C-alpha cells in the first residue's frame, strides 16, 4: 500500500486512538503526580438540630486562592505511587527486613491493599483464562458436531452468559450461592454442613468468582473457535480419517494446530479483560475476601471524600500491568511481522 493511501486509511483510526486512548492516558498520568493543595483548616462553630459544636472546616476562600494560583494542585512526583495504598515501598522494605521467612514476608505483603488485590487479580486472570479457553473449545467442538436442526438453538443457549449484563449475571449467581439459595443449599447438603456459607469463606468466594468468570467469558471463546472450526481444511481432516486417526487424534493433530492463532487471540483479549475484573466483586459483595485493581479505583472514587490521585495512580499501575501481561504476545507478533518483512 502506498504511504499516502495508508495515511488516509489510517487517519480516522489514529484520531480515535488519540482521543480515546492517548488523551486519557496522559490525563491519568498527570493526575497521578499532582495532589490537592494542603487543606487550609479553620476552627468553626457548626449549629444544627442537635445544638452547636466546635468543629473544623475547610477555609474556602484561602483554598480558592491556592487553587487559582496552581490549578493542577501540588506536584508530588511519584510519592503517591510509593505510598501505602499503592506500591508501599517503605512498608515492603520493612516487611522484607523484619520477616524471618518468605511466608512471613508474603503475609505482610497480603496486608497491603495493592498487593492483596494484585494477588487476587493475577490468580483470577491465570486460572480463568486457560479454563475458559478449554471450555469454549469443548463447547465449539461439541456444537460443531451437532445436527443442523438443534444447532441454532444450542448456539443461542451457549451465548446467553455473554448476553446477560455482567453485573446482573454476577447477582444471579450471588443469590444462587447464598446459604439459602439453590446452589448454596445444595453444596451444604453435599458437604453435610448446614452452616457452610460460600460468602463467609475466602477460598470458596475466590472459587465462586472464578467459576463466574469462566461462565461469563466462555461464550466469547466459543464463538471465536466455532468460527475457526468452519475453516478447518476438509482434505486434511479426510486424509487423517483415512489414515485411521481417532476423533481425539483428529482434534489433537489437525484442529488444534489450525486454531492456534485464534487461541493466541482469545488469550490476548481475555488476559486483558480478566485483569480488569470488577463486576463480579461488586455483584458478589466480595470486598471482604477479594479485591482487584479496578475495585480499588472504584473504592477510591466512591468514598465520601474522593481520592482522585490515588485512583489515577492505580489506573496507571493497571495499564502497566496489562502491558507486562501482554508483552510476550506483543513480542511474538512483532517477531512474526519482522519475519514476514524479510
Amino acid at each position, binding site marked *: 500500500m502506498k504511504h499516502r493511501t495508508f495515511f488516509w486509511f489510517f487517519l480516522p483510526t489514529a484520531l480515535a486512538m488519540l482521543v480515546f486512548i492517548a488523551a486519557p492516558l496522559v490525563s491519568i498520568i498527570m493526575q497521578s503526580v499532582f*495532589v*490537592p*493543595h*494542603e*487543606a487550609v*483548616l*479553620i*476552627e*468553626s*462553630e*457548626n*449549629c*444544627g*438540630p*442537635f445544638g452547636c*459544636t466546635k*468543629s*473544623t*472546616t*475547610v477555609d*474556602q476562600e484561602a*483554598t*480558592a486562592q491556592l487553587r487559582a494560583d496552581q490549578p493542577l494542585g*501540588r506536584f508530588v512526583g511519584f510519592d*503517591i505511587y510509593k*505510598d*501505602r*495504598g499503592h506500591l508501599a515501598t517503605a*512498608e515492603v522494605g520493612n516487611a522484607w527486613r523484619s520477616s524471618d521467612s518468605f511466608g512471613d514476608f508474603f503475609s505482610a505483603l497480603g*496486608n497491603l*491493599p495493592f498487593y492483596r488485590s494484585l494477588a487476587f487479580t493475577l490468580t483470577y486472570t491465570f486460572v480463568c483464562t486457560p479454563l475458559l479457553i478449554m471450555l469454549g473449545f469443548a463447547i465449539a467442538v461439541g456444537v460443531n458436531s451437532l445436527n443442523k436442526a438443534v444447532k441454532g438453538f444450542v448456539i443461542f443457549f451457549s451465548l446467553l452468559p455473554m448476553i446477560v449484563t455482567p453485573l446482573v449475571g454476577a447477582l444471579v449467581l450471588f443469590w444462587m450461592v*447464598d*446459604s439459602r439459595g439453590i446452589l448454596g443449599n445444595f453444596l451444604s447438603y453435599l458437604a453435610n454442613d448446614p*452452616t457452610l*456459607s460460600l*460468602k*463467609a469463606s*475466602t477460598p470458596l468466594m475466590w472459587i465462586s468468582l472464578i467459576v463466574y468468570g469462566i461462565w461469563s467469558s466462555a461464550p466469547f471463546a466459543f464463538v471465536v473457535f466455532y468460527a475457526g472450526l468452519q475453516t478447518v481444511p476438509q482434505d486434511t481432516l479426510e486424509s487423517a480419517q483415512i489414515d485411521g486417526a481417532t476423533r481425539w487424534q483428529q482434534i489433537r493433530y489437525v484442529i488444534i494446530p489450525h486454531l492456534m492463532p485464534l487461541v493466541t487471540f482469545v488469550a490476548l483479549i481475555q488476559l486483558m479483560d480478566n485483569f480488569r475484573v470488577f463486576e463480579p466483586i461488586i455483584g*458478589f*459483595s*466480595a*470486598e*471482604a*475476601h477479594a479485591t482487584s485493581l479496578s475495585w480499588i479505583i472504584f*473504592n477510591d*472514587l*466512591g*468514598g*465520601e*471524600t*474522593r*481520592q482522585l*490521585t*490515588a485512583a489515577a495512580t492505580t489506573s496507571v499501575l493497571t495499564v502497566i500491568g496489562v502491558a507486562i501481561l501482554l508483552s510476550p504476545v506483543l513480542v511474538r507478533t512483532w517477531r512474526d511481522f519482522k519475519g514476514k518483512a524479510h
Partner: protein
Amino acid sequence: MFMKKVALAAILATTSTMAYADGHGCSINARVSIVGNEFPAIQTVGAGAQECSGAEVTTNLTADHQKINVAGMSGNPAEYTSAIIANSSIVALMNEDVIRPLDDLVAKHGDGIKPNQLITINGKVMAVAFMANAQHLVYRADLLEKAGLEVPTTYEDMLAAAKVLRDQGLAENPVGGAYKAGWNLAQEFNNMFLGYGGSHFKDGSAEPNVNSEAGIKALEMMKALSEYMNPDFLTHDSNATNAEFRAGNVAVMNMWGSRAATMTDAEGVPQEVVDGFAIAGPMTVGGGSIPASTLWWDGWTVAKNISDEEAEATFIAMKHAIRPEILEDEEVAKQAVWLIDGYEPTEAAVGVFAAAQANTIPYPMLPYMGLMHTALGAELTDFMNGSESAEQALADVEAAYTAAAKEKGFLQ
C-alpha cells in the same frame, strides 16, 4: 366577537394555571434537579418538590448518591441544583466548595422553617435539615417474651439474649446487623467506638486515634455479636439485614430509625413478625452512659454553580417539599422523625427520640472523617474474617487513613 372569545379563553387559561399553581402552592420558573439517597422519607421529599409547576423538576434518588453528587455539582452549570445529604455527606460538598450559602434565600423565602432546621457552619446557613435519624434497637417482642428475656439496653445484654435465643432454638442467628464490608461495617464500628468513649482523631487535629483501647474493645464486641449473625454478615447491608428481619430470622438488631417505621410494611412479612415487631432506644456498651450510636440529620442543599434563578427555584421547590402540611398524611408522618414544624412523634419515632435524649453523639462533621470512614470500611474486614488481630486491623486503618489524608492535604 372573535376577539372577546380569545380574551376569554386567555383569561380562562391563566386562571386555570393559577388555580393549578395555587392548588400545590408552588410555582417556579427555573429548572430543579435533585440528587439524594433513596429511603421512604427522601422519596416523599423528592415527590413533594416535583409537585411544583412552571419548570421541570427532576430527581435522581439512589443509594449511590454519594458517588455522584460531588461530580454532578462540580461542573458549571451544575447538573444537580440540590443534593439531599446528611451530616456525613455534606462534608464532601463543603470540602469541594460546590454548595452555596443560603442566608439570602432563607431571608426571602424562609418563613415556616424552624431555626433549628438551619445547618449553619461558621455563621453561614449551608443546608436545611428536615429529619433526624439514628440507629437504635429493633426487636421481636414475641421471641424475647418466649425466652423470658428483658429488652436489652446494653450490647452485653444483647449478647446474652442472643445466646439464650439460640440455645432455646428460637432463632439460629438471632442477631442482625448491617456489617457489609465498606461503609456499613465502618459505621457499626463508629457506633461501638463512640459507645466505648473513643474519639476518632487526636484533639483538634487530623491525626488518627482509633488504634486505642476503645477501638480494640469495639472490635471485640462486634466480633462477639457476629458469632450470632448469619454467616454471610459481611455481605449484608441495611436492605439485606431488613430482609432477614422480615423473614423472621432475626430477633434483635441495631437499625436505622428511617427504616424502622416501614420495616413490616413489605409484602409477605409473616404475621408473627408484624405483631412481634418493636422499637427501643439505642444500646450502651461497656458500662458507658452515651449510647453506642450516632445522631444524624438529613437535609437539602443548593448548588453553587447555578444561576440565581435556579437557586431560588430550587429553594422554593425544596421548601415546598418539606412544608408542615405534608405531615397531614399519616403515612408520611411516620416515615421519619421530621424536624418540620408541627411534627408529633409517632410510635415509630421512639428509637430516635431516645437516642437524642440520651445525648448520643452526632456523627462527626469533620473534613477528614470521610477518609477515616473509607479506611475503616476497607481494613476492618480482615479482623471480622478472623484472619488478623484487632491491633493489626486498627494499625492498618490508621496507616490507610494517613496515606489518604496526606494525599488530600489534611496531614503533612
